[in-house]
């Protein structure tokens, strides 16, 4: 009896120690992810402004902040820009990333080295990339306009970041550049897992080049490709550094997205309640994609 008691007590102690291994991380996740998400929901239902910090009062206002957010003249443009920014970035990153991954699948001298160097844009601080591109896209002194003029593509310098009609395109181009390495890396990994035998068998049946891509590569790559696409969407929806660094949401609000709106309402206008409403709308959209992602990931893991 005493022996069993002691063993049971040892067992319980063991469990306690195991739980302690997880406790700091669990506490951190709770305080720095759980609390902010809940706090954002609460804030979005309050009149939370600079005054709140002095008086401590944040009166409940129901859904008024959401009404302000959705009713503002910038809501529709921000939704449209968010959609265009996300779609454009993802399409560009994915197509170029897939092409590069396919190219580097072949074995040739230096292929491994070149492929890892390709990662550099992904590792640079985003604000560094923004600053660099901002100098390159400058209307008068930028290298891009000088280059295009020398090629004869354009006659007049293009105001990439100062004209409302092209600024969103410029921001998308920069974000594509930033996202290519991530796409290459994951897609390259996916390509590596397609058995070489499939291509050999395909070649016997005459499937080479594009045919091999459509009938062998694409169907086998689809699970990885879906994960890359969904993750890309979730990451792109929340992009802030690139836009703030390049255009600050301007010119004439041409590059306002939901994330930029949320930042500006909270930290420029100090309307934390409205900012929270914007970011909750953003979370809701992300959540839809996150659920899709998790379903896919689970399938990818199960298989």
């Amino acid at each position, binding site marked *: 009896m005493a022996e069993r008691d002691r063993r049971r007590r040892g067992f319980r102690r*063991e469990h306690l120690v195991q739980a302690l291994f*997880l406790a*700091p*991380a669990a506490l*951190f*996740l709770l305080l*720095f*992810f759980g609390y*902010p*998400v809940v*706090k*954002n929901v609460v804030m979005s239902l309050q009149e939370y402004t600079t005054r709140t*910090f002095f008086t401590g009062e944040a009166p409940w206002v129901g859904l008024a902040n959401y009404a302000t957010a959705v009713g503002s003249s910038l809501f529709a443009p921000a939704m449209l820009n968010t959609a265009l920014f996300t779609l454009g970035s993802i399409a560009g990153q994915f197509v170029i990333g897939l092409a590069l991954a396919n*190219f580097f699948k*072949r*074995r*040739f*001298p230096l*292929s491994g080295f070149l492929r*890892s160097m*390709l990662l*550099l*844009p992904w*590792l*640079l*601080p*985003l*604000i*560094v990339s923004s*600053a*660099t*591109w*901002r*100098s390159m896209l400058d209307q008068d*002194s930028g*290298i891009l306009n000088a280059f295009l003029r020398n090629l004869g593509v354009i006659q007049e310098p293009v105001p990439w970041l100062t004209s409302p009609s092209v600024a969103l395109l410029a921001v998308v181009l920069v974000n594509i550049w930033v996202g*290519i390495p991530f796409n290459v*890396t*994951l897609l*390259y*990994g996916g390509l*590596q*897992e397609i058995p*070489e035998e499939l291509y*050999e068998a395909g070649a016997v049946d005459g499937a080479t080049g594009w045919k091999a891509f459509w009938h062998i590569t694409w169907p086998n790559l689809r699970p990885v490709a879906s*994960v890359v696409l969904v*993750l890309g969407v979730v990451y792109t*929806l*929340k992009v*802030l550094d690139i836009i703030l*660094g390049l255009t600050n949401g301007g010119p004439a609000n041409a590059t306002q997205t939901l*994330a930029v709106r*949320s*930042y500006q309402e*909270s930290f420029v206008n100090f309307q*934390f309640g409205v*900012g929270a409403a914007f*970011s909750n709308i953003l979370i809701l959209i*992300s959540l839809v994609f996150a659920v899709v992602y998790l379903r896919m*990931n689970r399938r990818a893991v199960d298989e």
Partner: protein
Amino acid sequence: MTTLDITTARSVPARLRPRKANRPKLGHTAVGLLMLAVMLFPVYWMVNASLQPSGNTLTADFLPLNPSFEGYEKAIAQQGPNLLTSLVISLGTVVFSLAVAAPAAYMLAQFRFRWINAALLAILISQMIPGIVIANALYAAYNDLGLLNSIPGLILADSTHAIPFVILIMRAFMMRIPPSIVEAARVDGAGLVRAFVSIVLPISRNSLITAGLFAFLFSWSDFLFALTLTTTEDVRPVTLGIYQYLGTQVSNWSAVMATAVLSSLPAIVLLVLAQKYIAAGATGGAVK
């Protein structure tokens, strides 16, 4: 996908490979070099512009034939303290993130509980929460706690980038530790904590270094928390310094680009030191 998969894929027996692969394909190397040159042109341009004499932006030469270090002198004079602040915050984030995440990763890798999948799910989802949501809530909380404009405040906030990532990537490594090694130590009377410190951590040294480098890089690159959680010049990371350069009419690109080059050094060091782990890092945070 892990590094293991890459290495196994590389060692496919020669007879399974297409015969052509055995001949060197220099044409492919040339095309690959060209692609890399296009992709990395902005990085080259950053370095080039940083070496141009200041005030000469209208006619920036393609090659820095007469390199000027004026930009770097200005950068270090104006941004030196900010670089130092970034360094302190990033090192703090590494220490804090590893201390919190490594035991959790071990537990999630080696013990069987019913709720482990739920915990992993929560960690994955946490990576998808927009930083602005966290900043919004932390600003209010930090204001009450007096953590605005403070290094500990930024270390804690920056750890939100690092901790979920470190847990996932270290767990992937620790899953490969044979439980028998730890069990042997336990039989000899070592407690769980002691076994973890004296056996698991030394075995996982490589993954600790990789995860630590990434934690450093995440924190070093952070811009959003620096922007929202600091309001004075007391504590100003270099990313915010660059942003402030951009906010005022940019007249001196060589100083901005010199700061950008200095801020890129950790990324370059990571690329050189941990090259083979980076691919695992890129995917480790994304796919469980």
